[in-house]
């Protein structure tokens, strides 16, 4: 069973003068335990791709299946639910909530789903320990380094045990050593927890950690 499948997805943007095609008949299937990279220059359609795969944006044509369930007919509330239950986002520059401690960054996602139980607290703590943040549970984002923040973002994306991990330029703003460390960690967690992961990046050095690499240019997706 494919965790996530895009089928002939096309996205067109219209403004007053002309129509731009951001994605053109894109199809992609990612299975459990696979780590796929999508590279391309800026403006190539990477972000549009990630937005559609992440249930943030609806395609003009085509369909997205998450665990074989089509999502294009869902309303805003149902999409939020899909994002909460099935998708873990690792966002660019971490995008952590400034007034929450490292542990609370994870618990807020738990809270969205329901009550924060002792068991969930334990799971979140173990996840953070696994990512080498055991000593930083009570720290605020401004007390962390860039790499540490990105690791918190990784932990946050895994905490609700989603099937799909989507990473948006996770190495932006990181030096080479930190960038390698972060992508290695994503790869390790994806494999050990058996998730389907897609990483959008323009950083070619990171491709060696991925199972498959796709290049996107002018909205057209090609496997390398």
């Amino acid at each position, binding site marked *: 069973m494919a965790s996530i499948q895009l089928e002939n997805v096309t996205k067109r943007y219209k403004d007053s003068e002309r129509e731009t095609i951001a994605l053109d008949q894109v199809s992609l299937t990612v299975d459990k335990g696979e780590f796929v990279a999508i590279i391309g220059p800026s403006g190539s359609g990477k972000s549009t791709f990630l937005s559609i795969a992440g249930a943030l*944006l609806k395609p003009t044509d085509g369909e997205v299946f998450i665990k074989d369930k089509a999502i294009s007919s869902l309303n805003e509330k149902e999409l939020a639910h899909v994002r909460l239950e099935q998708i873990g986002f690792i966002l660019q520059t971490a995008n952590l909530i400034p007034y929450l401690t490292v542990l609370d960054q994870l618990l807020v996602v738990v809270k969205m789903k329901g009550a924060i139980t002792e068991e969930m607290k334990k799971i979140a703590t173990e996840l953070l320990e696994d990512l080498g943040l055991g000593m930083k549970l009570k720290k605020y984002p401004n007390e962390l380094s860039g790499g540490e923040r990105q690791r918190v973002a990784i932990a946050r994306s895994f905490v609700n045990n989603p099937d799909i991990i989507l990473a948006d330029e996770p190495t932006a703003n990181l030096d080479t050593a930190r960038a390698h460390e972060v992508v290695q960690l994503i790869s390790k967690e994806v494999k050990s927890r058996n998730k389907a992961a897609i990483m959008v990046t323009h950083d070619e050095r990171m491709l060696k950690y991925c199972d498959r690499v796709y290049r996107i240019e002018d909205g057209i997706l090609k496997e390398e």
Partner: protein
Amino acid sequence: MFLALKELKHSKGKFMMIGLIIVFISWLVFVLSGLGTGLSDLATSTLKYSEADYAVFEDETDFSFSKSILSESVEKEILKQEGVDAVASMGTVSASIRSAASDEKNATKTDVLIAGIQPGSFMEPTVNAGENLTSNNLNGVIVDDSLKADGFSLGDVLAINGSNEEVEIIGFVHNQTLNHQPVIFTQMDKFRAVKYAAPGSDTGIENPVNGILVQGTDVDTKKVEEAVGEIEMGTKDEAVNAVPGYAAENGTITMMLWFLIIISAFIIGVFFYVLTNQKTQQFGVLKAIGGSNWFVIKTVISQVFILSAVSILVGIGLTYLTAAVLPEGMPFNLQLPMVVIYSIVLLIISVLSSLFSVMKISKIDPLIALGRVE
């Protein structure tokens, strides 16, 4: 609540400042409400807190004790009407008093309102010191205890300026003022001897009084007016509103109160709207990682609720402290029901003011979390 409390705790300074503004506003609202009640008491307490339900005056006198003059015998007619249980006549006259022992030229005089009543009627308040009026003691009077501050005490003999009458204080009563003056309750005959001393000043009316207070239930005032003739009848509230200056005074204070409440709503609304605008990226991220609209909206509403509730409570505390240190003679009467009502109104309006933010939040596109939109 999770996010709301964490943020309140983390950004104490920021929220304390806006909290302080709400504290000051609610403090001012409660103090003003106390002063408003105090002032309206000063103007009307004898009427307002009396056990009367209706009031009867001479026709075409706008419910005014000073314009109206009736014969005490009208009482009997009114008592016959449907729904009427009891009647009590009252006559009022402004006067100034001094200690009878003092010399008229040099003595300090105190403005008062002399109210003539029938001893034992429901218009006679119960004394908190001394004894009540009795029909066999014509010179005895019971007076508002604010006169104590002017140096009067039980057993003092008072001279009434412009009159040869002298009276003796036999009791004190609390919170009895009318037309902003402390009330001296006298026997009806004593009152007449002061007000209608000059021959013909009673315009030929036998046993004149200025108004008749009525106790009763579901009295049809129009019907009574027709049956008795040459009178006008209104509810107690109508009579209270007709007290000179009362309506204007009360209107001014009520207007200030509502302006304050609306201003506080705007301050809170705008503050949280600006805060929400600053946090669009954060809220976008929360939505992107699966937070529903309601999840995000809840945090803002609960922040407004917690902040307002705590600030209003502090405001109430400060108000009672203020009440404790206010000088004795200040017309200040803080009533618990008013405090509760204004607190609830302030709280509801504050929470409603967060609707600006709620609208803003529901429009935030989670797509902004991706950092750039192509």
